[in-house]
């Protein structure tokens, strides 16, 4: 394991940033944190997690797909894809790292999404183990270990030091190029892991269980609980935007005045337009839209992915929902009806 004193962390960031763009969670000045490009003066946030997830790095909120030039009846298709620059994201928590696996299962299966693959190949993820999980955290429910996040490399902040170990070749290549000292004395790391595990076990949602709903798809779908759960849903879509695993997108054309840009942007199953067709929509009421979101995370996605849930327990939707509805309440209700 590599070890450096926390007082040297900015020098460590500076070394990475010499060669490629580096993003770290920094305080946003509004009591939260957001991924910010590191530059002199940008300090690592102490927040448990960023307000927006880390999915933006690989699946940005909007991105250009292809350009067109139209001239009378003639159309020119311009493949404007470019190789992405290398970049490093530091400080990704275990839940968000796990969300990349879920995005991978969508975008890196045939036919591979070249835009996503490009960013994924050029990004290096340095995860950061949790030491102060919050009351909205429930990653353990999905078998995620907040003290051992995956990624290309994994970091711990223990005592007055930053410990960091490589997990992939990409991570190893990056770390070995930085000239940091190695250490065998990792007692502080293990002490911190033990302490965090204790905190995790005492979280209010520690006992939340993810039941296997996949064998009772229709029971879960037809459960009467959806009416009550969705009753106050405003359809604002906040949950889908902060969610690290929500990956639905829309494709639209924009006329720049000297050409057409076809772009994609995040979309939300909570919106009425999402499934609207000329003859109407199969999901007309908010109940149906609400149900789709949670059925996807807890039933449909696991059915198609060997039981892996489409939720990583990051707790962002618990914090952001204006009517305090969330996946935890849905899981509890659904667990009862599919018993």
């Amino acid at each position: 394991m590599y070890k450096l004193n926390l007082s040297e962390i900015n020098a460590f960031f500076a070394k990475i940033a010499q060669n490629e763009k580096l993003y770290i969670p920094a305080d946003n000045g509004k009591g939260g944190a957001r991924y910010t490009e590191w530059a002199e003066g940008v300090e690592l946030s102490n927040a448990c997690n960023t307000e927006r997830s880390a999915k933006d790095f690989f699946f940005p909120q909007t991105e250009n797909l292809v350009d067109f030039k139209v001239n009378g009846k003639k159309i020119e298709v311009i493949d404007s894809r470019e190789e992405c620059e290398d970049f490093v994201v530091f400080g990704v928590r275990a839940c968000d790292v796990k969300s990349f696996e879920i995005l991978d299962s969508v975008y890196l299966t045939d036919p591979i999404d070249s835009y996503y693959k490009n960013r994924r190949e050029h990004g290096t993820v340095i995860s950061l183990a949790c030491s102060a999980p919050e009351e909205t955290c429930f990653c353990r429910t999905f078998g995620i270990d907040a003290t051992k996040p995956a990624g290309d490399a994994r970091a711990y902040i223990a005592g007055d030091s930053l410990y960091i170990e490589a997990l992939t070749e990409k991570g190893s290549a990056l770390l070995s190029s930085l000239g940091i000292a190695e250490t065998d004395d990792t007692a502080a790391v293990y002490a911190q892991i033990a302490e965090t595990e204790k905190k995790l076990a005492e979280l209010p949602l520690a006992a939340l269980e993810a039941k296997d709903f996949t064998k009772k798809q229709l029971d879960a779908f037809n459960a009467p609980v959806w009416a009550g759960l969705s009753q106050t849903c405003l359809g604002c879509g906040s949950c889908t935007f902060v969610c690290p695993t929500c990956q639905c997108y829309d494709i639209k054309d924009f006329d720049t005045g000297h050409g057409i840009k076809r772009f994609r942007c995040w979309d939300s199953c909570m919106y009425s337009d999402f499934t609207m067709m000329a003859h109407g929509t199969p999901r007309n009421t908010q109940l149906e839209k609400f149900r789709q979101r949670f059925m996807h995370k807890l039933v449909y996605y696991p059915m198609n992915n060997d039981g892996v849930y489409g939720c990583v327990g990051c707790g962002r939707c618990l914090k952001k929902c204006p009517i305090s509805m969330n996946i935890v309440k849905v899981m509890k209700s659904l667990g009862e009806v599919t018993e």
Partner: protein
Amino acid sequence: MIEETLIPKLGVVTDIRIDTPDVKTFRVVGLDGEKPFIHVPGQCAMLSIPGVGEAMFSITSSPTNEEFMEFSIKKCGCLTEWLHKMDVGQEICIRGPYGNAFPVESDFKGRDLLFIAGGIGLAPLRSVINYCRDKRENYGHIDIVYGSRSKDDLVDYREIIDEWCADKDINVYLTIDREQEGWDGHVGFVPNYVKELDFKPTSTAVVCGPPIMIKFTLAGLIELGFDKSQVFTTMEMRMKCGVGKCGRCNIGNKYVCKDGPVFRCDQLDELPNEY
């Protein structure tokens, strides 16, 4: 960079046929004059006009047609309005093929086939009907029931009369919803007509049309003794990507764009009733 399915190819519209007051059939070839790609009956393609929109359409021509692709399109939205106004020679963006296919080389082989369509629902069935006509020796008897609001709303009317009706071993049954001057054929809704015709439940049925027509036709077929596993249909949902990633065309855990659009009716029973 690897090939990207979201980046379309170019095609050109070489013929436009007016089928009904709101349906036109567009013939499309690639810029090189060849078919844009190979497909199987039941598959779809994404057509788009930059700056107007992109949408999924069933490929109505049969794969046995080696010269061009055809799309029968009803005018009902922004993109389709535009397509209805365009002229021959217009270039068009096309990508695909998407989705599964009718099991023409497995379940259908050697079977008597019963095709039932309502209105523009004939568009996806025309591909498979003409495929079976072109490979006639592989299939048993063929019955086709097709209905529309009026005589003027029957899509591909000339081809039905001149070619399908002329085939010796194919029975075509046309019906329109209401009496109309100049129409001496059957009058009545498709589901009732299917029951009147009293088809034997030995054939494999394929149904496509408005959701309400599919629902009642399926009920009628079951009354006649058909099992749901003998009945196929093809579904429609809003789509953006066509490859199961944009997330909106699912029925339960199945994506209509890649796991469908063709479903066997007993398979649909296992999925949430949300279509």
